[in-house]
């Protein structure tokens, strides 16, 4: 990759995507067979580019017959989640199992607890409404970003309310059931097949803590956690992830109202954030990164601060259980 002082938007391009894909598959095979001593891979498929790429890399590493794709939609999943997951599995040639997690979530009180928390700041919120949490864009100014709930009634009326700290934590805690229930099912299939659970975070998500501890943050191996999102797209194209998946905007698919990852967590478009993260890692100044990303320097300065802030918050998410004595 280019040295920081020559940073351009092209800096993140892998020089030889085919070789990179081959190296990842080779390393994945070694880790799973030799270190983990498991005989294949379970991948949770979301219909997104990350999990689709991982399914392809696993098929390359172990052979498609030793990969199980688990499809885990729930009542609030986007309409195309299931179709796209099937498209990805078919393209990778891997077998799938469908686990609708709606009833498990209902039994855990996921929806009920979340809705009760939303109603503490938005009493109008009722059955049939759909909601999401958004974080105002960092591009807008020097205000603190505050989590806000946006809800839509069945008639299309839209309301917004700033969350209190308590409501925010309760909404997040309740929706985290989704990622944790999914991981529980992935491990069920992994245990029954003697497979490893292969995680799907990319570098941006891994570095910035955009995952649920013991939910999607849990896995036996994370083969693309070192790849910037831009590189994920490049590699996905290389290994044959269908265009319909590569062209879909990144979504959290966690809330009933459609929500981009930018709205929930990242606050700036991912390609620009990707470049800022790379620039920061390479020691480039905010001025250099700003020129490469096409952003004002003061925005990049805020993005740099935000990256560092999220890293501090992510330390807890990355921490294994700590022992008080060796």
């Amino acid at each position: 990759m280019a040295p920081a002082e020559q940073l351009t938007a092209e800096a993140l391009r892998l020089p030889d995507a085919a070789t990179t894909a081959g190296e990842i598959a080779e390393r994945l095979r070694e880790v799973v067979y030799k270190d983990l001593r498991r005989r294949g891979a379970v991948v949770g498929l979301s219909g997104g580019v990350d999990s689709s790429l991982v399914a392809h890399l696993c098929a390359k590493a172990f052979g498609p017959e030793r990969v199980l794709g688990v499809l885990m939609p729930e009542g609030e999943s986007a309409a195309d989640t299931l179709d796209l997951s099937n498209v990805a599995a078919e393209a990778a040639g891997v077998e799938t199992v469908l686990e609708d997690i709606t009833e498990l979530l209902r039994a855990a009180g996921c929806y009920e607890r979340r809705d009760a928390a939303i109603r503490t700041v938005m009493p109008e919120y009722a059955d049939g409404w759909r909601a999401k949490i958004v974080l105002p864009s960092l591009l807008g100014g020097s205000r603190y970003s505050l989590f806000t709930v946006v809800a839509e009634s069945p008639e299309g009326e839209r309301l917004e309310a700033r969350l209190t700290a308590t409501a925010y934590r309760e909404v997040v805690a309740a929706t985290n059931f989704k990622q944790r229930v999914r991981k529980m099912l992935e491990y069920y299939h992994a245990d029954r097949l003697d497979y490893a659970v292969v995680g799907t975070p990319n570098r941006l998500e891994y570095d910035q803590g955009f995952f649920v501890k013991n939910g999607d943050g849990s896995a036996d191996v994370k083969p693309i956690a070192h790849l910037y999102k831009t590189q994920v797209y490049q590699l996905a194209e290389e290994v044959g992830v269908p265009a319909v998946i590569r062209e879909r905007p990144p979504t959290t698919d966690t809330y009933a109202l459609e929500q981009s990852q930018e709205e929930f967590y990242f606050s700036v478009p991912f390609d620009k954030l990707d470049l800022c993260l790379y620039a920061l890692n390479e020691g480039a100044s905010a001025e250099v990164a700003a020129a490469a990303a096409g952003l004002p320097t003061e925005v990049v300065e805020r993005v740099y601060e935000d990256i560092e802030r999220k890293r501090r918050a992510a330390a807890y998410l990355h921490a294994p259980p700590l022992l008080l004595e060796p």
Partner: protein
Amino acid sequence: MPSPDAIEQEVRQFLKDNFPLSADGVVLDRDDSLIEVGVIDSTGVLELIGFIEERYEVQIADEEVLPENLDSIACITRFVGEKTAASNGAG
């Protein structure tokens, strides 16, 4: 209307009671950035807003949620002083 000293003491106590780093013996100067020192994060800002609104019976608008109003003990003390003066004046 609380005096600036009283507000500062209450804010310090709130930080100490609610944020682990602050409770852990870290002594904050009046002008230390709470975000930079790592005492509060974005959820912590929500918590701070909640405390100010409830304790001083004022409403904080989104456009007032700025670092210059909330990022240090000195800023918060001044901001709360202005808000309580305004709400008393209006009342």
